[in-house]
């Protein structure tokens, strides 16, 4: 789950990390009031989930509340990479003495969270790590043992910091590590963490991402910071196809189906599975010159209704001429049930299964029964003796052969 910047600020604040006296505003009027309260110069920032705000004109500086209001009015109407803002953040323009970088993220290879700290904040941390490795401190955390302050202290000290700043940075990094653990964050980043003229440390920007799998156990916290759990947070707007397939999947607990078509514009519909099989088959179709209309995943043991539902949605897509129904060898997906589903989809749409299904290649459980059904409707099928690659190739050949 991705968070808007203002939500990340709230999360970080709750964890005891100092933040600026910011205001989250949904109107230009509110922005003016917030700027008045803050006093002095402010920064107005678009609240969208995508990056590139600065470049798109979504971040502006204001010297007066009136300017803040004007900028807010503009930014609230500014679309960035297809996203409209949900509001603006009004931040005091800080008098920064130094910028730091603090993050806690997963190291998959170590299978542990890792603290990352640098006294060269505000810029690309990967660049800093490469060009100034002495200015980057890191330390892995145990998953089981309580987090202790010395761990963050070591990470901070390892990038060369000492004096009063060492203690302050340590407190922030420790709180960040605790936050990451307590809230199942896949990313907990503060960049920059700023030291102000008065010596205080403040998070000028925060970027949090919570693992989707864990959202269910943080509902109260999410509600408290104002997250609408029903609102989807994709980087892009789901298509009708994707939404429809999701609805069909939710309506029936038997088996799992998934469909994606963002970036796919072809004429060959794919009714494929399972996870690894879908990836392999999509590659196989494209490598042989085919143009998939979509990606899909069939998993578990879907009902006829569910299989039919996926096939129908694929067939209803603009430009889809034929479908290829293919999976890796299945153990608990019933071949005959899927066969019924895809044939029923064709029939209900007034299409001839033999013409519409370019190839059916699902070896495995109840395959003999499946073949009987496919024989009855004249659908071309292949058993495990035909590789996934060749099955995909047959589908591509058929659709490109200008079949009727």
């Amino acid at each position: 789950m991705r968070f808007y910047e203002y939500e990340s600020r709230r999360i970080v604040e709750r964890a005891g990390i100092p933040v600026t006296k910011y205001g989250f505003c949904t109107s230009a009027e509110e922005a003016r009031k917030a700027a008045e309260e803050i006093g002095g110069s402010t920064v107005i920032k678009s609240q969208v989930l995508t990056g590139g705000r600065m470049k798109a004109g979504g971040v502006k500086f204001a010297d007066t509340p009136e300017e803040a209001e004007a900028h807010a009015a503009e930014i609230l109407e500014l679309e960035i990479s297809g996203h409209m803002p949900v509001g603006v953040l009004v931040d005091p323009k800080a008098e920064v003495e130094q910028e730091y970088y603090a993050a806690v993220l997963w190291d998959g290879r170590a299978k542990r969270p890792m603290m990352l700290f640098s006294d060269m904040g505000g810029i690309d941390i990967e660049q800093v790590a490469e060009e100034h490795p002495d200015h980057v401190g890191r330390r892995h955390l145990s998953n089981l043992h309580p987090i202790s302050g010395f761990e963050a202290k070591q990470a901070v000290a390892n990038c060369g910091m000492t004096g009063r700043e060492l203690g302050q940075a340590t407190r922030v990094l420790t709180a960040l590590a605790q936050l990451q653990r307590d809230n199942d964050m896949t990313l907990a980043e503060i960049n920059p963490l700023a030291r102000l003229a008065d010596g205080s440390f403040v998070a000028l920007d925060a970027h949090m991402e919570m693992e989707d799998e864990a959202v269910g156990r943080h509902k109260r916290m999410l509600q408290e910071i104002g997250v609408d759990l029903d609102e989807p947070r994709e980087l892009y707007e789901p298509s009708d196809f994707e939404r429809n397939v999701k609805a069909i999947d939710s309506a029936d607990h038997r088996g799992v189906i998934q469909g994606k078509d963002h970036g796919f514009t072809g004429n060959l519909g794919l009714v494929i599975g399972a996870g690894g099989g879908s990836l392999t088959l999509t590659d196989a179709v494209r490598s042989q010159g085919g143009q998939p209309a979509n990606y899909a995943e069939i998993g578990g043991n879907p009902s006829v209704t569910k299989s039919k539902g996926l096939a129908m949605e694929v067939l209803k897509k603009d430009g889809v001429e034929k479908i290829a129904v293919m999976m890796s060898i299945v153990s608990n997906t019933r071949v005959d049930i899927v066969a019924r589903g895809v044939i029923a989809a064709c029939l209900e749409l007034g299409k001839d299964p033999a013409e519409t299904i370019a190839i059916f290649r699902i070896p495995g459980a109840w395959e003999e029964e499946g073949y009987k059904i496919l024989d009855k409707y004249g659908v071309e099928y292949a058993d495990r003796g035909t590789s996934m690659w060749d099955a995909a190739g047959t589908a591509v050949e058929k659709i490109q052969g200008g079949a009727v």
Partner: protein
Amino acid sequence: MAQAEQLEGIFIDVDVSDEIVGDPELASKLEEVCPVDIYANDDGKVAVVRENLDECVLCNLCVEAAPPGGVVVKKLYDGSALRR
């Protein structure tokens, strides 16, 4: 090919013999054993829920629950049937 709103019973059909269709105990039993809700107890009579026919998983539980010949599950795609 004729276009239809929703096709039912294109792969599977079931025959429930006249002798048993009015048996309320059997109606309840069939409703209970079928994992895909093909049977319903309709006021003491065995009712077939046609919209679920094609979900039949060929488990044979209905055939076994009924007396011999009472329920026949027909596979329309190859002409064979499950019966006892």
